[in-house]
């Protein structure tokens, strides 16, 4: 899952009315020859529909492996690891080790995922699996989540290799094949495959840190050091059914609709933790005396001020940061158009605050919907709460330097909690701290289309992200 951009309205007050430059129109600093290579690799990556169950992951892994091989990584350091994610989903992960000739420090891990969320041709304006460049954007499923990150982390390494750069620690690349469904690849990589992946810390390319608002003001770059726990629940109703010409007073679909109406109105208890306290402290400073800024200050002063937390949560930039959130994402019900439904089911996706147990959320949901509706967690994935990773000064310095090269000092860099879950959680759970530090960016909220329709990434974001990772490799492994 794409980590959601942390929004820091830096310098919003001091910028005043002066027109800011559209960041999409600023020329990229990536040399034209590398632009062409980057564009071609992104095109090939997007046109492999690496959705679960389509059997395309080995092809995607081979595409990336071929780049490393061509740049000089020996076959003995390239591992395509086949595994099964969802039942029947034969997927694969890629692990590549770029060896240091004289390693002086423990390896560094670079994480990404190769799979993408399903996209349906009939829902999109264009074929989601045909690469397009249009109006300063690259379009296609995976263009922002996260084939752009796959391409940037790979291309940056290849570029450095071609320039003769020798890392002073091994850099391990791990690209999973089921981050959007199971996270089994990351589970295996952080446990059974640990001999290939063990590292001092990890840098996750899943989640661009930076963003601009609609007026092109820099919103800041949030480095995710903690993430909410992902848990899907199923709401199920049952009924004897019958002939639809003779409706019964009770009805599985109506019972489910009632439960969904309650879910729509329900709000979980607001909570603060170290990551979000730091984030909101900075946000409050930047927001100044705006209504939002005042609400943040009130909440920080009194964590029991639910009205203040509600006002923050209602802001599109802050959604999901003040509490556990659950939302209905899928429905199915009935077996024939002319028969009363015998069952109906809603899929409810929750993002749970770190430290809260998924079974407690289940109990709260069950109490909310009442005894007519059965609430069960998805048996294929039981979320495990993970601890925040302590922020490393070297990582913070490297990311700040890279981000500010492309966006100037107004793009401030701060720790945040991610509302999306990612492969990072499995490594955190196994003792490897992970930081989400990708350099891609977009206009918030227009370009936040990961998992949604007409996904896209600015052309310049893709190209500069190659240089961003190049700087990070140099800073942390050079």
């Amino acid at each position: 899952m794409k980590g959601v951009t942390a929004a820091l309205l830096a310098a919003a007050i001091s910028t005043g009315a002066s027109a800011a430059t559209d960041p999409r129109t600023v020329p990229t600093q990536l040399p034209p020859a590398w632009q062409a290579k980057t564009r071609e690799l992104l095109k090939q990556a997007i046109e492999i529909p690496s959705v679960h169950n389509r059997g395309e992951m080995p092809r995607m892994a081979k595409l990336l492996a071929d780049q490393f091989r061509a740049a000089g990584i020996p076959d003995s350091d390239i591992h395509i690891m086949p595994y099964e994610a969802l039942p029947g989903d034969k997927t694969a992960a890629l692990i590549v080790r770029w060896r240091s000739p004289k390693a002086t420090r423990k390896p560094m891990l670079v994480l990404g995922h190769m799979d993408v969320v399903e996209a349906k041709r009939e829902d999109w304006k264009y074929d989601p699996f045909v690469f397009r460049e249009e109006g300063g954007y690259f379009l296609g499923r995976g263009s922002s989540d996260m084939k752009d990150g796959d391409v940037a982390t790979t291309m940056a390494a290849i570029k450095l290799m071609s320039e003769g750069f020798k890392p002073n620690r091994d850099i391990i690349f791990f690209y999973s094949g089921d981050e959007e469904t199971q996270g089994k690849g990351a589970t295996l990589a952080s446990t059974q495959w640990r001999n290939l992946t063990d590292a001092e810390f990890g840098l996750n390319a899943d989640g661009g840190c930076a963003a601009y608002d609609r007026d092109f003001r820099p919103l800041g770059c949030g480095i995710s050091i903690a993430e909410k726990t992902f848990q899907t629940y199923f709401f199920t109703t049952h009924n004897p059914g019958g002939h639809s010409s003779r409706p019964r007073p009770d009805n599985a679909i109506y019972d489910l609709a009632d439960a969904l109406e309650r879910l729509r109105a329900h709000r979980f208890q607001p909570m603060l933790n170290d990551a979000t306290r730091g984030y909101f402290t900075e946000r409050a400073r930047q927001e100044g005396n705006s209504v939002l800024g005042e609400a943040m200050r009130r909440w920080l002063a009194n964590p029991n001020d639910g009205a203040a937390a509600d006002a923050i949560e209602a802001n599109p930039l802050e959604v999901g940061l003040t509490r556990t959130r659950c939302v209905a994402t899928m429905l199915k019900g009935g077996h024939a158009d002319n028969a009363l439904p015998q069952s109906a089911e809603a899929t409810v996706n929750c993002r749970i605050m770190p430290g809260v147990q998924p079974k407690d959320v289940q109990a709260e949901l069950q109490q909310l919907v009442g005894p007519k509706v059965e609430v069960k967690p998805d048996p294929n994935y039981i979320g495990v709460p993970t601890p925040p990773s302590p922020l490393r000064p070297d990582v913070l310095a490297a990311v700040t330097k890279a981000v500010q090269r492309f966006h100037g000092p107004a793009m401030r860099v701060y720790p945040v909690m991610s509302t999306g879950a990612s492969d990072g959680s499995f490594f955190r759970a196994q003792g490897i701290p992970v930081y989400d530090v990708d350099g891609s960016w977009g206009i918030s909220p227009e370009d936040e289309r990961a998992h949604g329709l007409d996904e896209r990434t600015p052309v310049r974001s893709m190209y500069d992200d190659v240089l961003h990772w190049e700087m990070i490799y140099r800073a942390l492994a050079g």
Partner: protein
Amino acid sequence: MQTAEKTFAGYTLTVRNRGGHSSKPRKDNAIYSLAHALDRIEAYRFTPMLNDTTRAYFEGRSKIEKGALGDAMRRWLANPNDGEAADFIEASESEVGLTRTRCVPTRLFAGHADNALHQLATAMINCRIFPGIEPNAVKAELEKIVADPTVVVTRNEDNVASLASPLRPDVTEAYTRAIRTLHPGMPIFPEMSTGASDARPFRVAGIPVYGVNGAWVQVPTDFRAHGKDERIPVQSLYDNVVHWQMMLRDLAGK
């Protein structure tokens, strides 16, 4: 004896949304809009109606029905504007669907991934429309009930309104004789069927059709068609062979 049937009409409620990442729920949500529309349909009652077939049916039924249900039938026949009486009749398990148009959701579909805000949510609404009412008028009524322009109502097919068949003395006599041979004293009256059958296109094309099967069941425990554990009494099947033998002889023999 079935001489009329309600019009079968399917409608689809469709709600679209931009979607997005489920970790950042949007204020607008197609599933919630759809759930709200379904709750409104659940609460809604179409206007009660009588026609010649159902009037004859309820006159016949009210003669044998004692108690509160029979009283409600008599009150409604005396005053077709007595909505409370019609509601009482409609609430009876044996009379469901006979007093008005009924619509019920039968299927739901939404979403493309558990971790993505859905872009599309749909519900199938199955309606059984009182004979003579145009399905397009019910579409307009559904739009009014839902009262949300983001919930789009479309028809699933292009059925026209069903018609009633005029009673024929020869069919009525043959049916009455067959039924009373097997079930002496059984009252016989015309009936409007709430289910759709193949009779509809024939009636629309000008061939009158009469529902005169001889199967029998216990009401309402044996009403299980399209549902779970469908069944028929053994004796009912055997009797029905004899019933049809009499009907065929009377109407096509000498």
